[in-house]
């Protein structure tokens, strides 16, 4: 890595969140925060957002319309067949397949979206800043150039709660 980074390493969630909020008040944002489990204060505080739930809604909408459309087309236009005197366009009995297949479509498409957006995919090499961030350490990463102006105060807040590595 060509850039220089400062790592603030914390032992638990509480100290991490405290330091994060103090820094945020000062207007300093970490480049990234690594935690062993999701910490909601961080997820809400970081300048990131996700539209994955909206995407899932639209996948569902289009999948449901598409599947219902296909069933109607196949059963009543392409090759209509009599099944025990039922109407060709037997809408009520299409509902079941539409629901289940829509759920399948939402799941798979949302998974692919997640994989693409969070860049989590087979064969990816992890860029690890701190070996224990998936075990028991909470790590904040700062870009050294980005915090040049108030690096002293950042460092003091970090050392107050955790340590710098």
């Amino acid at each position, binding site marked *: 890595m060509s850039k220089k980074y400062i790592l603030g390493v914390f032992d*638990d*969630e*509480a100290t991490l*969140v*405290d330091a994060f909020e103090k820094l945020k008040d000062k207007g300093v944002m970490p480049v*990234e*925060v*690594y*935690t*062993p*489990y*999701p*910490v909601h204060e*961080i*997820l809400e505080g*970081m300048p*990131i957002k*996700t539209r*994955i*739930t909206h995407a*899932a809604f639209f996948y*569902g909408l289009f999948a449901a319309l598409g599947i219902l459309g296909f069933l109607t087309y*196949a059963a009543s236009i*392409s*090759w209509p*067949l009599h*099944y025990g005197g*039922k109407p060709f366009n*037997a809408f009520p*009995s299409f509902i*079941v*397949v539409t*629901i*289940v297949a829509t*759920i*399948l479509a*939402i*799941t*798979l498409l*949302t*998974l692919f979206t*997640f994989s693409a*957006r*969070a*860049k*989590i*995919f*087979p*064969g*990816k*090499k*992890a*860029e690890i*800043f701190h*070996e*224990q*961030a*998936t*075990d*028991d350490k909470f790590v904040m990463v700062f870009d050294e150039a980005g915090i040049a102006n108030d690096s002293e105060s950042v460092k003091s807040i970090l050392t107050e709660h955790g340590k710098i590595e």
Partner: protein
Amino acid sequence: MYNSAVRGKLIDGDKSFSQISKDILAPIHAKTPLWWYAAMLVSLGMFGFGLYCKYITVSTGIGTWGVNNSVAWGWAIINFVWWIGIGHAGTAFSIFLLILRQKWRTAINRAAEAMTVVAVFCASLFPLLHMGRPWLFFFIFPYPNTRGPLWVNFNSPLFWDFVAISAYLLISASFWYFGMVPDFATIRDTAKSKIKKAVYGFFAFGWTGSSREWLRFEGLSFVLGGIAAVLVVSVHSIVSTDFAVSVQAGWHTTIFPPYFVIGAIFSGFAMVLTLVITMRGLYKMNDFITDRHVDAVCRILIFISLIMGTAYMTEIFIAWYSASEYETYMFFKNRLFGDYAFQFWAMFTANAVIPQLFWFKAVRKRMWIVFIISIIINIGMWFERFNIVVTTLSRDYLPAAWANYSPTYVEIGFFVGTLGMFLAGVLLFFRYIPMIAISELKSVAKFDKPNNGQLKAKSHE
């Protein structure tokens, strides 16, 4: 906010985060114990016998089974419904307890989901081979073909079933896998050996635990959890329509969908108990799967058992109340006192009576009794499916078509084979996969701390 006064602590032993990772990953990093190889050998033996029986089924045909023209659905459909039922607990555990904000689920959901994936896979084999010509199974896909294109019958519950099971298998497997990605990353970062680092590193998909990943991960869990809840209810409802849409006495009832869904969750939770008590016994996970966890599952089982009892009584009552000659015969003559009365009463006792022992605290805290009852429930649920499938088919409207049924060794071997496959799957799970969701467990660990682990009094629940 988790109210610890009700259920006590979630994790015993006041563990640090790294201690949690270490304890749960211990079986993966340790040497494989001897009993593991022995158990694996036994399950592979069972699996092999099952393969042999499948070979006979495919090479000779369904004639090697005990099914006949009247009782055309024998053990294959019984076992299919039984396995699917067991497979329901994983998703039910993850989703319903998630919706109900039950934090104790974190210790158990991974095992329950693993069980789901293996059980649904076992289940899917039965209808596949029951087709008779399984090499033509792809005819059931609605794909543009040279036969018309002749589409499949979208009105048929058997087609709904096919869609439901393949969707359920894919969805529960991906839900389970993505839940494990952060834990695989933990193994990658704590493992000493290079091979383990590489293998688990591959399966971790480059996970680092950054806030960008967690944010989307939470979004993903939210979406998958929300829609999988619908799936839990719909899949077994669809399985029940295989029966309820027909016009057979004892099957053609509107109670079937809820009755099947509840029954599925019942047998699934019982299998979860069997599994987690085994985990506690073999791997000393008592600090994570505490007595209180087992206690909570037992309490749920009392409740579901009461619903099961009510459902059985309702069926019998409605058979009388409907004043239908056939329904009355089916229940009062055939099921209660007919040739298969033993299976009926075994089902009733095992599902509606014996689980009532869980009312007693003395029973709930003795693990070996809980273990035995959990097995009894699974046997009882098997008899329930036998009772539904065989009693109805063996005595239909035409006395000339009445026939009894008993399985051949091929059918039994097929079932034993899936049991072996399930056991082998569970053993592999114990050995190579973190059997408790580490990252989820860490996220609830703070609720055990005196001041909630927070510097400020703040809650985000």
